[in-house]
């Protein structure tokens, strides 16, 4: 079982990797020719987007596992990944807007990726509202598992339907290869790795907190009887 008193390996690693990634973004990666300094937000933007999507995938898997096994630990994982996912998606939307304002000359446009991220944000934020509206533990876990699964099922349809609108989003990773300078690619990979480790650290911490909270509540109930 995860505990809070373990040595904090992952946070320490994240604490090393994130400054390294930021250093590489600003001092190692070359300046992009047309976009200039603004392009540097891309490394963080893509790592945030990747980990946000990972969170919702983990939430969906945890939802399925909870409905099959009915173990508290899966509910804790689901809650942790949804919380982290909502925060990361918020950051994706903000960093994308900051980039889009000078490059696209607009904060927002109805592009497939933007639409998909926004709808995902809405679905999983509503899932957090749902969790706050149910007191009973088992019921809250069941309901949020159902929402996490159906929310994730929505993703391909959202993307499919949004694809019909015209897209101006850059596709860096295409089927014929990656359209990036090697130094940029290395920076991108380090940024994604840093964000993944940070994600894992947050996830572990949040799961441990939920575990602690549940044990505390059990103890409280035992004392009352």
């Amino acid at each position, binding site marked *: 079982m995860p505990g809070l008193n373990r040595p904090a390996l992952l946070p320490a690693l994240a604490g090393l990797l994130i400054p390294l990634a930021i250093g590489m973004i600003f001092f190692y990666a070359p300046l992009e020719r047309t976009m200039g300094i603004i392009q540097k937000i891309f490394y963080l933007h893509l790592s945030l987007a990747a980990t946000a999507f990972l969170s919702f995938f983990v939430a969906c898997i945890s939802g399925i596992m909870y409905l099959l096994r009915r173990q508290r630990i899966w509910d804790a994982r689901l809650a942790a990944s949804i919380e982290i996912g909502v925060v990361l998606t918020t950051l994706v939307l903000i960093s994308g807007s900051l980039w889009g304002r000078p490059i696209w000359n607009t904060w927002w446009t109805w592009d497939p990726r933007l639409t998909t991220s926004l709808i995902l944000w809405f*679905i999983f934020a*509503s899932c957090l509202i749902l969790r706050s509206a149910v*007191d009973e533990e088992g019921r809250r876990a*069941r309901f949020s598992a159902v929402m996490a*699964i*159906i929310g994730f*099922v929505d993703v391909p349809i959202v993307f499919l339907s949004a694809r019909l609108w015209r897209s101006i989003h850059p596709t860096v990773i295409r089927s014929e290869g990656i359209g990036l300078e090697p130094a940029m690619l290395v920076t991108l990979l380090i940024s994604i790795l840093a964000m993944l480790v940070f994600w894992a650290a947050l996830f572990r911490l949040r799961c441990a907190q939920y575990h602690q909270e549940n044990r505390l509540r059990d103890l409280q109930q035992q004392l009352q009887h």
Partner: protein
Amino acid sequence: MNSLRQILFLLGKDLRIELRKKESLVSMAFFGALLLVILNIAAGVDNQVDADAGAGILWVAVIFSAVLGLGRVFAREKENGCVAALLLSPVAPGEIFIAKALVNFILMVLAQLVLVPIFYVLFGSNFSGGPVALLPILLLVNLGFSTAGTLISAISAGTRRNEVLLPILLFPLLLPLTALAIKATAGVLAARPLFELRDQIEPMIAFGLIFSAAGYLLFPFSIRED
């Protein structure tokens, strides 16, 4: 055969309650009509609405009125502990889901029979496309709405804030479907033939089927108490 009879029995029961109390349908049609009037006033005195805006207006009225009906179907079962009775009866949860989704589907169709004519009375002079071509789009949205809505209303009925939570949970899930429907409706209002709109209609069919399957599989988890 047996399960079909059970579904029809549950469906008949809900429709009979609706026929006697008329609470869902009247509030759906009334609220939808009210929204259309408000949006007509908002459109200004000269009432110049193009096909895109007209489609948006119609769907705002339809989905907001539909939520009223979706919420009632489950809240009614909760009132006297009828959900427990339903679960004790020899009917599988999947069949309850089908029956409830059918009730919602029928309620939405009936409400639209009122709303679409009112829409045409208020805004119709702007559009060349007839109401009959809207039928497949309306039915496809109803399929997605009634299946996803049944699942979500079972969840929201189990919480403390039923009426508030239902649209909050449901609308994000149905956003893509509604966006497709608005696009297709704009095409119909501009009198484009239906086969030109298959880029919108095909994902709408997929959406309906996926939500029917997901709702059928997930519904037992959202009503069964353990």
